[in-house]
């Protein structure tokens, strides 16, 4: 005895069953199970079901081999004619098996509830009833139920037509009645046994005479004829590739069809419906129609992105129809989706090219195309599905959440200031980055600018550490303490004088004579040190770790002496301080970024070793003499990272020209509107840069004529 176990999934993909029908349904169900939102607990893997093909008894049975709660293994044993797997009766039986599988795999009925097994005879009504019940239990699956039922009845219609007599005689089609009318159970071998012991007079075709009457003795005559229906109703046999007619009993030598002179002799495989003298099917259609329907084409090679135009796709080429001009492609839409939804795609049927920008949410979709039957062929279209992955539009994914109401140390998400002082524009803007907005975090950057005595402008910019839990406080304390310290130091006459001397000396010297002279400039490192102290004291006061207030600090101070600006700068951490001269276009970096071992790591103000003598804190001090008109600019890495791709870029005046050109518009706008809050500059900070979503802060000290002389904007 040979038992060949065929796992369901391989049945579905093997070429053996090339029928578009119940097998394809099952594949569709399986796919649907996977892609749908059915609860996994109700889904049984198809691997646990086995279609057993017992070649000796010539039976097919669906056997459950798993150990799920649905109960013990059950067999639905249906016998078939081994010679003819495409027998419509078998088709119907197998369809029933498929339906059972669907029912069981969806958990909608238990094995015991299904009318299978010995002593039971499923009928069309049973099928109908089951479908109705299933649809009621699972209303969202009504379309599936209808589709299956539709296909099943299609088969049944087919079956009816071919066996017109048999079915017309019977009140309803009986799937498993035996030839001699006995109400034998379904699992009795209904196969025609060519062996002599044939107590079941079965029609030579292997089919059962469902009406239970004696089959016609005359094997050469069609059943229809035998039943007294006159001619072998050829018009009831539409040409259909899927059902080769293995009906040796249909030898129609003795049958003449008055309408069709071209009587076939031999087998009925080539039966032509005389009612419509259609031209023969084009070969390409026959080929297409033979395949699974819908047929899944290869996936679109490049994933699409919401809101972005796709690379045009030659669909005909993609699905392999490029050589078949007569095959027309119709774009049906995108699924899953609303009906008639094109999802933003456009298809030109003339050149077969698909274009467009997806306007749907991200996910896996299928583009649906239909190929209608050629003229003269009555058949439903062949459907093609082309899988496509659509990535969401990244801009649509970014959320904006407010920080929790009960957070300690709140800070406004956006802030800024613009002032005109004498012939200078002083402005800064600071905005929360998309990263923090997405999580409902705070802006961790901060900035302070102040005008002090003797025309000194001081600027402090700080970037709170990402890993610091109260970074926003750290940066706020740092900038405030830094500016306060400078103010207090400059209150002392001797310090002021020293600084003024230093500045004047620098301004008057020739460039070549300028020695690096730190005298007077100690104010800056002292201010940074005071800022560190303030932050550490705050940490102690709040009884939190130092690193919880981790922050960088960029500080610079400037005053004008005649045609020159003198600048002193001091930095701890990353970010940039730079000067740009309008006339020469020269740009200079005035900060030395600290970079750590990994990307994103830098030194923080809270790191005590920064001001230890062995760390040479004065090496962080930079002093420059800049020709006016000039722009002095300080920014956190939230701005410098996206705008400067590398260190070389930062040293390149052209990169700076690009940046200044971008800044020109908001600067001019603020200049004319005198907007205190620096809204245009804040808006500029909202620029989109892939991969750069940090908080952004920029501070600018600029001579009024800078932009015009520089030639920007």
């Amino acid at each position, binding site marked *: 005895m040979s038992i060949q176990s065929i796992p369901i999934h391989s049945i579905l993909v093997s070429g053996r069953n090339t029928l578009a029908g119940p097998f394809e349904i099952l594949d569709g169900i399986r796919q649907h199970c*996977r892609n749908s939102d059915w609860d996994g607990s109700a889904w049984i893997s198809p691997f646990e079901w086995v279609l057993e093909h017992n070649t000796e008894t010539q039976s097919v049975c669906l056997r459950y081999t798993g150990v799920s709660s649905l109960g013990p293994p059950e067999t639905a044993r249906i016998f078939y004619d081994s010679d003819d797997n495409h027998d419509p009766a078998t088709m119907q039986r197998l369809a029933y098996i498929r339906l059972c599988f669907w029912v069981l795999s969806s958990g909608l009925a238990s094995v015991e509830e299904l009318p299978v097994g010995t002593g039971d005879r499923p009928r069309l009504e049973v099928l109908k009833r089951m479908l109705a019940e299933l649809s009621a239990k699972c209303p969202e699956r009504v379309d599936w139920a209808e589709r299956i039922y539709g296909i099943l009845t299609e088969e049944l219609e087919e079956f009816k037509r071919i066996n017109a007599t048999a079915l017309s005689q019977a009140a309803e089609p009986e799937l498993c009645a035996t030839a001699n009318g006995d109400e034998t159970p379904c699992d009795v071998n209904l196969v025609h046994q060519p062996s002599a012991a044939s107590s079941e007079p079965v029609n030579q075709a292997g089919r059962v005479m469902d009406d239970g009457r004696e089959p016609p003795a005359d094997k050469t005559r069609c059943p229809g004829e035998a039943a007294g229906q006159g001619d072998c109703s050829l018009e009831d046999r539409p040409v259909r590739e899927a059902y080769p007619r293995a009906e040796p009993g249909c030898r129609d030598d003795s049958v003449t069809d008055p309408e069709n002179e071209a009587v076939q002799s031999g087998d009925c495989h080539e039966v032509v419906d005389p009612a419509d003298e259609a031209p023969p099917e084009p070969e390409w259609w026959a080929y297409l129609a033979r395949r699974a329907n819908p047929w899944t084409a290869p996936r679109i090679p490049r994933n699409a992105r919401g809101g972005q135009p796709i690379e045009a796709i030659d669909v005909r080429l993609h699905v392999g129809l490029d050589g078949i001009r007569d095959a027309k492609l119709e774009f049906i839409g995108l699924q899953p989706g609303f009906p008639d939804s094109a999802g933003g795609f456009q298809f030109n049927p003339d050149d077969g090219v698909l274009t467009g920008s997806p306007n749907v949410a991200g996910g896996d979709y299928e583009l649906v195309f239909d190929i209608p039957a050629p003229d003269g062929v009555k058949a439903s279209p062949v459907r093609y599905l082309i899988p496509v992955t659509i990535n969401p539009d*990244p801009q649509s994914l970014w959320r904006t959440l407010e920080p929790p109401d009960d957070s300690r140390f709140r800070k406004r998400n956006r802030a800024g200031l613009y002032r005109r002082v004498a012939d200078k524009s002083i402005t800064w803007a600071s905005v929360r980055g998309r*990263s923090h907005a*997405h999580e409902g975090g705070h802006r961790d950057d901060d900035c302070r600018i102040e005008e002090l005595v003797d025309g000194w402008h001081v600027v402090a910019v700080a970037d709170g550490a990402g890993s610091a839990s109260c970074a926003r406080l750290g940066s706020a304390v740092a900038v405030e303490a830094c500016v306060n310290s400078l103010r207090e130091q400059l209150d002392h006459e001797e310090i002021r004088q020293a600084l003024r001397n230093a500045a004047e000396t620098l301004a008057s010297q020739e460039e070549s004579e300028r020695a690096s002279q730190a005298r007077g400039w100690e104010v800056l490192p002292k201010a940074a040190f005071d800022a560190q102290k303030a932050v550490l004291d705050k940490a102690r006061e709040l009884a939190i770790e130092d690193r919880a207030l981790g922050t960088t600090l960029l500080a610079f101070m400037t005053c004008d002496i005649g045609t020159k600006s003198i600048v002193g700068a001091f930095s701890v951490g990353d970010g940039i301080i730079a000067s740009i001269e309008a006339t020469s276009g020269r740009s200079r970096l005035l900060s030395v970024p600290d970079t750590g071992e990994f*990307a994103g790591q830098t030194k923080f103000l809270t790191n005590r070793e920064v001001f230890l003598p062995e760390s040479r804190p004065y090496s962080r001090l930079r002093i420059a003499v800049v020709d006016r008109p000039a722009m002095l600019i300080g920014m956190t890495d939230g701005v*410098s990272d996206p705008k400067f791709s590398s260190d070389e870029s930062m040293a390149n005046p052209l990169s700076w020209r690009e940046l200044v050109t971008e800044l020109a518009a908001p600067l001019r706008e603020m200049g004319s509107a005198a907007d205190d809050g620096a809204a245009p500059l804040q808006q500029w900070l909202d620029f989109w840069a892939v991969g750069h979503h940090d908080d952004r802060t920029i501070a600018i000290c600029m001579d009024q004529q800078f932009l015009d002389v520089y030639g920007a904007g």
Partner: protein
Amino acid sequence: MATNRRLPVYFLLDTSGSMVGEPIEALRTGVQSLVGALRQDPHALETLCLSLITFDREVSVILPLTSLEELQLPKIDCPDSGPTNLGMALKVLRERVEVEVRRSGESRDWRPLLFVFTDGGASDRQEFGRQVPEIKRLGFASVIGCAAGPKAKVDDLEQFCEHVVRLETMDGRSLASYFQWVSTAVASGNVSMGANPDMRLPAPPAEINVVI
């Protein structure tokens, strides 16, 4: 100075014979939903790159390191039977990391992540013994092993994984849970990278027991 840095994430997936049937099906679904979930995260879409390496009798790089936006998930196949050559898988992983991950220079990647999934242990003990010490040198930010099912050998995973989680069963629900957790871990690691080199794992769901 970062221009769109990538976060490489490697998956080593056991496709040995014992995975045939529901386990491999659940694994496929799990990976699919992981990718789907990650695609909804704006940070992930910009920086994440995934690679899938399956191992049974052979080791196959079914998906070389590819950005989340571009990747198309291949079918995860499972031969009918076969040993679990985890050692060889680690060897192939090293080769891939050396080629694919940018370890220095201006556009260097974030430290990669490694997730290992197995329902057994290493069949190729010798190779496994050779490869384990080398894994640490690859500089993964975190190596997370998943020992799924009753026969999984946690000890093997503990040798080179910082964290090991256990799944009691390998049904659809457990695996779905596990991959959900993986996607949260990856997404949060993505956000905090650079700021915090010690990746802290999110709390695992009920079905998963964290061993280490």
